[in-house]
């Protein structure tokens, strides 16, 4: 009896090998399970929370942190930042730079943001621009300033001098 139980076990193991060689399961095993063995040494070496956030959130998170750094130099009490849409960044030739949506910006950096088309757009007192490949914050003092920036966002001019993505 034990021999037959053992035979069932061996047959099961053999069937498992066949199972994991079926195309979708092979792919699943490689991409979701076995990839773990190559990821884990690096991840164990990098347990710092900030590193893990940057790895997971990618460019959007890095961007939010950059914006936070820029605002800290301007000493505004309640900065509300006008952010361009992604097509502006792409037109400026920096597609790898990811604009976080306002709610995500607030999560990552505690900064309030607005994007063109939102009803609160005229509450913005700062705006984000890309000038010669540099990310810059400009102060917005009037409705006119905001309209000018919105025009710039709507008709972005390609910037051929771009080299660096961040200021």
């Amino acid at each position: 009896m034990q021999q037959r139980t053992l035979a069932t076990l061996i047959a099961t193991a053999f069937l498992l090998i066949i199972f994991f060689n079926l195309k979708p399961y092979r792919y699943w095993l490689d991409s979701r399970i076995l990839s773990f063995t190559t990821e884990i040494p690096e991840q164990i070496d990098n347990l710092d929370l900030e590193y893990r956030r940057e790895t997971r959130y990618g460019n959007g998170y890095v961007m939010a942190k950059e914006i936070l750094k820029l605002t800290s130099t301007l000493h505004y009490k309640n900065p509300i930042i006008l952010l361009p849409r992604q097509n502006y960044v792409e037109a400026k030739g920096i597609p790898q730079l990811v604009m976080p949506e306002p709610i995500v910006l607030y999560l990552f950096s505690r900064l309030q943001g607005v994007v063109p088309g939102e009803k609160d757009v005229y509450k913005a007192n700062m705006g984000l621009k890309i000038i010669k490949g540099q990310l810059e914050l400009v102060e917005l003092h009037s409705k006119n300033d905001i309209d000018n920036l919105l025009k710039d966002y709507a008709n972005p001019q390609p910037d051929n001098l771009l080299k660096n993505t961040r200021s």
Partner: protein
Amino acid sequence: MNIAGLIFLILMHFFSGRGLLYLFNIKTRLWATIALSMITGILIIALIPMLLDLFFIPITTENVIISTLLVTILLNSTQVKKYRISTLKHITSSIKSITLTDALFLLLFILLMIPSVWRCFYFPAYARDILSGPEIIAEYTLREKTMINSVFSLNLETTNNHLKPPFVSGLQIVYKMLVHPFGELWLSILSGSFLIWLFSLMREKLHPAVAGFCLLLFIAIPEMYAYTYILLFDYANAIMFSIGIYFFLQYVIQQKANYFFFSTLMFGFATFIRSETLVLICMLLPMILFFFYKEKLPVIKRILYTGTFVIVPFIFYYVWMGIFIKYYLPIKFNVGDQVNTDFSHVNIFFSRLSDLTSSYLLGGNSTMHYAYFINVFCIILLTDVIVYRKFNTEARILLYSILVLYIGIPLLGFLIPWYDLDNTSKRALFKMFPLMLLYFRNSMILQALSRSIINWESPQTKSVQATIDKIIPQMAKPKPGIKKRGKQ
């Protein structure tokens, strides 16, 4: 990571859940009970931040710990005498009863789940629906001690995720406070407990090898596996929905009202995770009314049970949508604006049904998202239809529930404009898979296969039935005194 906090929460999940199971007099096998206690315990703890806010109590670490303890004590206060030291002996004997094939699959499942647990621990939640809703609410709750926080002062026109029920945000708050800045580890506990529960159920009726392969097919559904570490609502929703269905069928089989009421509570929790589940629950009503009619239940009981079945999930829905959002949050939200009231274009429903079938169920990217799980289900179902032509009560209820989801998901797409095909509907299909898996344990062909393997493994045993009873508990003859209803 705060290990002490994690141990505290695991204990609270278990004891609050166990207390609830005792309260409803739910009796299942040992490992199923442990798993079910953890799952229900997680749901109970998820309610705490919202309840604190409802009573205007600041959500601080001390208040969360005290209220968690209070809830657990409250749930166990009348049930504590039911705890038995002898249960510990059952653990030893149940470990001894694990066969070699069981051990092989258990080891495999543990190995498959390790990457999932690690990813839950290592990475923060990142799905857009979570970041722009539960995650940001949880983060600012930690800073401002209330879920009604500065997030609601933002312009939220681009999202509705802040309005989703506070199941995920509640657990994220508790886990960020007590365990880890990323929270999320509760998802591993939830999915792990669910898999233990499923394996325990599969083993009740199938040979270890057959049960193991069925569960492996389920774990290896690529899209579902991913959501054991990607934080979103749908996996948890699928868990609660399938537990609700399972206990409803236990009610039908065992004719015990406590199972029915526990089932409605589980549907309530499913609604607490995704509000639109309420529509699917209402679609289950014809089946429930049919069973009440068949059992010749007194009219008063029929009305009482049917009312409970709808009202309990509705209470979960209403506490969030009708009270919290309406009277506590500083925003205006009208559910009516989110629902399609133009019923003249019914073709939208049929085209969604067709798209869902062709893109995700029987063609398109089905294999990429769900591997061969649906194909195997169809083959097994067809074999049962062609060869055996009979289904037990459990199988019939499960097939009806799968049908409800098949029609209900496109219907939700028709009723709710934001309920799209490639995200919401695709993930809503998760609710089908545990039900398909539970069907496997009732499949005539798989039960016959199980019996054949057992017979082959022990040909010289005088009493083959004794071996079957030992290996597959539910194939044992019913004990005298236990009234069983449906054909088993």
